[in-house]
């Protein structure tokens, strides 16, 4: 009996924690994050890639050029 109660509790707590996470204040942002310059920068840089002469791909991050001072 004890085992069944524990198993039930595990599934119950797991399911309500999911609901809590969805509905709670934790899931809301209280400032205009999505219109900020930093958010736009994240989106731009996260998906951006450049192809080098040797065929390999790199990030568009400007600090990549610190590998080669001629590119700075």
């Amino acid at each position, binding site marked *: 009996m*004890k*085992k069944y109660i*524990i*198993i039930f*509790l*595990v599934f119950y*707590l*797991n399911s309500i*924690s*999911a609901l809590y*996470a969805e509905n709670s*204040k*934790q*899931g*809301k*942002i*209280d*400032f205009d*994050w999505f219109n*900020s310059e*930093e*958010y736009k*920068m*994240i*989106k731009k*840089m*996260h998906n*951006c*890639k450049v192809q*080098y002469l040797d065929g*390999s*791909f*790199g*990030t*568009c*991050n*400007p*600090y*990549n*050029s*610190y*590998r*080669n*001072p001629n590119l700075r």
Partner: protein
Amino acid sequence: MNSSKLITFFFIFFLAVSCTPRSLSVAQKNACMAPSANFKALDAIHSTKIHAILWAKKFAKQASSKELSLSDKCRQTQILIKALYGLRDGESATWENPQNNTSGKIKILNTIVQTGIWGYGGCRDYLSYIKIDDKLETFKFRACPKELGAFELVDSAGFPIPGHLYFAGWYFYDYRFFE
């Protein structure tokens, strides 16, 4: 191990594992992935790649510890991006949320200039501070603009260490491995 201990172990393990991706996935969905703001969850996932046992302890630890709200994670991410792309070595950026009694700071330490394909060229070392209810946590990271797919760096002992995260054009590495 008797059956009640086994059940208790699975109970804690199941709760710990089930809590991890949710908090992290909400932060990921909103692009609020500053490594310091999500450190315990990221570190637990990172440990699964390099430790045989330690990761279970870290999963349990992160599930029980207090973390920043999503808004504060986004604030920490905001100053991180501002610092990595816009600040010079030695400069810092901060945020504060009196409502939650939380604050954060990023300080850029140095930028590594190095020629050649391999190495740490372009990497920026920085300190990240997070304060929750007057409890201050300090993290040190190395952020590298490496070629896509080159996720591992060699640590001070010569072992390949995978990054904690690829985010916004940077690969983030826990600095403890490179000291």
